[in-house]
Each structure stands twice: as structure tokens, then as C-alpha cells.
């Protein structure tokens, strides 16, 4: 800025002292910044753009060239039913994660640092064990002769074992366990940044603790809440292993239909089309959420 003014003062000529050298230096800096980001750009290109492009292309071709046959196939009721199950399951898991995760994150955010770390450690623990192991662990717990049913029977609460697994319920339980950290972590991160003074201010202005919580704390935790909800929902949409093992075969997720397309039908075109559909739905949700949160802020402003 100062330089520009100096130049104007000097009669608009572009020949101040060292000007050329300084400009070269600025150029060089920009070049090295570009060089630093290049690996990341290449990586994104190779692992994201090219495979997705390939997927997209595969979904629109067969031996005879361009075709919509792979998408027409998806109109079969079995796929529509699977899509519904997928959404129901993702929705259920998201809601349960919210109900469990919000109080948990709140607790962790209010605890002294050391205790908070312990709580988070427990929440994170699932991350360090294999997905398969965790899923089988639920099988051991929930099956007919599993721990839960055995205890309930011994306590005389039930006579016949409950069907807790190999169905929607068991799948939702297993998935919730795996998804919970994805809800708790962003919530915790956001809650940690909410100053105690906001709640104090609300109380001081006359809000009871409950009103202050709903009217002030919850809206302030919204960024973490939105992040948690989206991550859990979107990841749940693409789940495969847990529903395959805990769903008893009758809980079919979209990803399982994709797998069936490749292994049973050996139909990469159909599988690609399903992948594209899932991708489009996911992007649609992200777009919708960003629109909603954007307008939510505006709504508050009104």
C-alpha cells in the first residue's frame, strides 16, 4: 500500500528502488507455496477425482456404449426397499448417537481436564480395536445365548431370550457403538469453546438453567452438533461390515447391494451406478444442510 502511494507520488513510474528484485522474491514465494501444495493436489486427483470419474463413467456404459440400463435396474423394488432401510438405519443411528453423545460430550466438557481425558479415552477406545472384533463382540453380547439375554433370564426379567441381534435393532446397536466417537468428538471440541460466561449471562438475565441450556447452550453448540450429525449420518449410509454381520441377512444396506452387484451379478456397471447414487445422495444432504444452517443463521437474525 505504502509502496503504491510512493509510486504515485513519484509520478506513477514503476521503477522504485529494488522493485524488480522484490517482485521476483514475491513470485518465488508463491511458487514454493504452490510446490508445497502440489503433492496434496496430486493425491486428491489420484485417490479422489480419478476413481470417482471412473465410477461415473462405468455407470453410464455397457458393451454397446452409452446406456441408462444400470440406473433403470435400480428401480426394482428390492433396491428401493434397501434404500429405505439404509436411510432408516442411518437416521436411527444418528438419533441414538445424538441422544447418547450430547450428554456425554457435555459431561466431558464440564469435567476437569484429567477426567475429561479419561471420558474421551473411553469414547475413543473403539477406534483402536478392529471393526470386526467390535462387531463380533456385540454378537457375543446380544445373541440368544449371549450375556445380555443370559443375565436377563437369570434375573427373571424375561423368560424367552429376546431377539436382540440378527435384525434392525442389533445392527443399530452395533453401528451406534462404532459411530459414537464421530458424534462426541466434534461436539466436545465445540463445547470446550463455549465460555462459561454465556450461561452466566443467561442466568443473570433471568433464564432458568433449563431455559439457558436450550436457548443459549444448545444453539452455541450447533456447529459441533451439525458436524457430528452429518458425519454420523453420511458414514452410516455407507456402512457394510456391521449390518452384514449383525443384520442376520435381512437388514440390507446400500453398500451390501453394491457388494452383491459385484460378487453375485459381477455387474460393475450396476455397482458403479449404485455408488454414484449414494454419492449424489450424500452430496445432496451436505448441500441441504449447508443451506439450512446458512438460512438458520439468517432466521435467527430476523
Amino acid at each position, binding site marked *: 500500500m505504502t509502496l503504491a502511494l510512493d509510486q504515485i507520488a513519484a509520478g506513477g513510474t514503476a521503477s522504485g528502488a529494488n522493485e524488480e528484485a522484490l517482485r521476483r522474491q514475491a513470485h518465488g514465494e508463491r511458487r514454493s507455496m504452490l510446490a508445497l501444495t502440489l503433492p496434496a493436489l496430486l493425491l486428491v486427483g489420484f485417490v479422489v477425482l480419478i476413481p470417482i470419474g471412473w465410477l461415473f463413467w462405468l455407470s453410464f456404459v455397457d458393451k454397446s456404449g452409452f446406456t441408462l440400463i444400470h440406473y433403470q435396474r435400480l428401480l426394482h423394488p428390492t433396491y428401493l426397499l434397501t434404500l429405505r432401510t439404509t436411510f432408516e438405519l442411518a437416521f436411527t443411528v444418528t438419533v441414538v448417537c445424538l441422544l447418547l453423545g450430547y450428554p456425554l460430550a457435555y459431561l466431558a466438557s464440564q469435567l476437569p481436564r484429567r477426567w475429561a481425558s479419561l471420558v474421551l479415552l473411553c469414547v475413543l477406545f473403539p477406534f483402536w480395536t478392529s471393526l470386526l472384533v467390535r462387531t463380533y463382540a456385540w454378537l457375543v453380547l446380544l445373541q440368544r445365548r449371549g450375556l445380555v439375554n443370559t443375565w436377563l433370564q437369570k434375573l427373571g426379567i424375561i423368560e424367552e431370550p429376546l431377539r436382540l441381534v440378527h435384525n434392525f435393532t442389533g445392527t443399530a446397536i452395533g453401528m451406534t457403538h462404532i459411530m459414537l466417537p464421530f458424534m462426541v468428538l466434534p461436539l466436545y471440541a465445540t463445547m470446550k469453546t463455549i465460555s462459561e460466561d454465556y450461561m452466566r449471562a443467561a442466568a443473570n*438475565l433471568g433464564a432458568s*438453567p433449563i431455559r439457558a441450556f436450550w436457548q*443459549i447452550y444448545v444453539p452455541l453448540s450447533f456447529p459441533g452438533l451439525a458436524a457430528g450429525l452429518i458425519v454420523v449420518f453420511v458414514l452410516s449410509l455407507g456402512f457394510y461390515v456391521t449390518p452384514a454381520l449383525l443384520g442376520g441377512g435381512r437388514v440390507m444396506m446400500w453398500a451390501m447391494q453394491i457388494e452383491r452387484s459385484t460378487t453375485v451379478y459381477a455387474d460393475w456397471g450396476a455397482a458403479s451406478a449404485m455408488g454414484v447414487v449414494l454419492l449424489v445422495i450424500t452430496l445432496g444432504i451436505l448441500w441441504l444442510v449447508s443451506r439450512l444452517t446458512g438460512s438458520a443463521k439468517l432466521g435467527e*437474525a430476523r
Partner: protein
Amino acid sequence: MATPADAPAAGGNRSASLPITIERLVKSYGSFKALDDVSLSIRSGEFITLLGPSGSGKTTLLMVLAGFVRPQSGSVRFADREVVLLPPHKRDIGMVFQNYALFPHMTVAGNLAYPLKLRNVPAREIAGRVERALDLIQLSAFGERRIDQLSGGQRQRVALARAVIFEPRILLMDEPLSALDKNLREQMQLEVRRLHDRLGMTTVYVTHDQREALTMSDRIAVINRGRVVQLDRPRELYERPSTHFVASFIGESSTLPIEVRDGRASFAGAPLLSAAPAPAPASSAPSFLVLRPEKLRLLADAAPAEANVIAGHVRQNVFQGDSIVTYVRTASDHEIAIRRSLRTDEVLPEVGTAVRVGFSAEDAIIVPADADAPQTGRP
């Protein structure tokens, strides 16, 4: 934000302010005593400042008044009503937080309306009162702005307006101006004081800035180590500090250890001819002579001897625009600051020059050497 004077609150003739009586408050965190048997009477409508260094307990005291900190024992009464057991949301007092604590998910108008909504004020009336409040703080056009679109000074005014829009009879302020730059802070000091005068509520103001306290307050309670050390009007506090701590915390001063024997004071073995001890310390107690820089004179060495003179030589001159501060080092290795305004053509005494510092007996403050804070030299 109608002022009670020209538009009394709907529904009655309640007074604009309440007196606060604080009795024997104790609050300790482990072995640390944040409030050590604090008692304080605040008059209705008074602007009182709690002044003290950080960790002195002033903020804790404010938090107890607001209800955010529960003391171990003691009593807080608003008028005749005991409130120490009352949860914060039932105390009906306004508060301005150090970081303002404006709700970022609400607009400016939303923040102002919030306390009114909580009090079930009809929507129409809320709109009117918010509008008047915005007018008062000169942010009429900013009602729909989000908080993060405001400058620091604007946020400060919104926070102030939010704290008083529901016409509380007590207003608490926790270092509300500390985040502002110097010019804005000084301007806001006057605005806050005018607002108080206009609304008339009892105001308890916390700061660590003694100048701010002197500027704004009816009375100042100097707090140190969980105790009220002195409670007085600004000028009395400045001119008649009762302890060494108060003397050194309020205003600039040079502090010299003296000995008082039989009503006569001596410094570094040499008698000060006529320092008037007030209040008179116990016989032969170690005491301090507190000298305000602006009340000292620099005497040429050749000047005739007079009462209350201390010899030394010039160590440093510091030019401060409106004044110059000369630091004089005594033979006993104590330092005295003298503030003078300079004539344009006046020549400064060179460093190393032998000089004498003179003062009037009535400007000399003698305080007992207390255990509070052995601050000497430059404030």
C-alpha cells in the same frame, strides 16, 4: 430503556435502586482465602468500585453478588432481602461481563430482547424498548447485525444496554472496559458514569485500574488478599490512604521508610523537620512516608534550607509530554519521583546533579508499615 426518572416502569412505583449489605462473607478455595470476612455497606444508588490487584478477591465478591459463586458463610442483602441462597436467575440484577458475553447466535436486537422475553414482556412493548435502547446507545441501525459484525466499543455498549434494559435496581460490572483501547476506554468511563447517573441504580464496578476507579466512583473499596482494606471517596482515598498498600496502589507515589519517635519523623537517620504524622502512628513504630510526585518540588542545591527537604542527585529525566518526571536518588539509595510541568524554555537538571526535594507538611502522608504489600519506589 426509559429512565425511571422520566418514565417509571409499568406496574408500579418501585424505586430505581436498592442498597446492598454484605456481612462477613467468607469464601476460600482450599487454603486460599478469596474472601476473608468481608463486610461492606453499599448505599442505594451509589456507584461503588471494587479496586484491587488481580487475585485480591474483588471479582469473587462480584460473583457472590451475582450468585455465580457460593460463599462458605456470610450474608448478602438487597435492601432487607437475604439473597445469598437465591439462584442467579432469580436475583434480577444486571451484569456486564468482562468479555461482554453477548450471544453470538442472536442479533443485537435479539440480545437486547432476551431478558424482556424471559420476563414475559409483550412483544409490542419489547420492540419499543429495544428500539429506544438502541437509540440510547446510538446503534439504531445495528439491530439486525450479528454480534461478530460489531466493533469492540459497539459490543461494549450493547452489553451495557442488555444489562439495564430490564431496569434492574442493581448493576454489576466486571472490568467491562478492559478490552478497549485507551481513548475509547476513557470515553466509555464517562458514558458509563452518565448512564448510572441517569438510571440511578446501585452500581458495583470491578476494576484493577486505579485511574478508572478514581474517575468513575462515588466510593472505592480497595480490596487486597480477600479483605476490604479501605472504603472511601476517591479524593480521600488518594490524599489520605490508611495503609501502605492503599497508598502505593492508588496513584503514583514514592515511599520512604521513616521512623517516628515522639511525634517527630526521621529519614535515614536525619530528622525531617516537620512532617505531620496523620494519623499518628504508635510511638517509635516503623512507618512509611508517602510522597505524591506532583506535590514535590525540586530545589536547587543552593536554595536556603527549609522544612521537609531530602537530598539526593538526579538519576533520570523522563519526558511525558504534559509533564516531566525526574527521578532523584537519595544517599540512602531510595528513589523519589517528582512530576512537574515544564516551561518551554526551562533547562532540565542534568543527570548526576545534586538536588534537594522539598514538600509541604500537609502533603506528606505517613502510613504504618503494614504487612500487605511492601511496594516501594515507582508505582
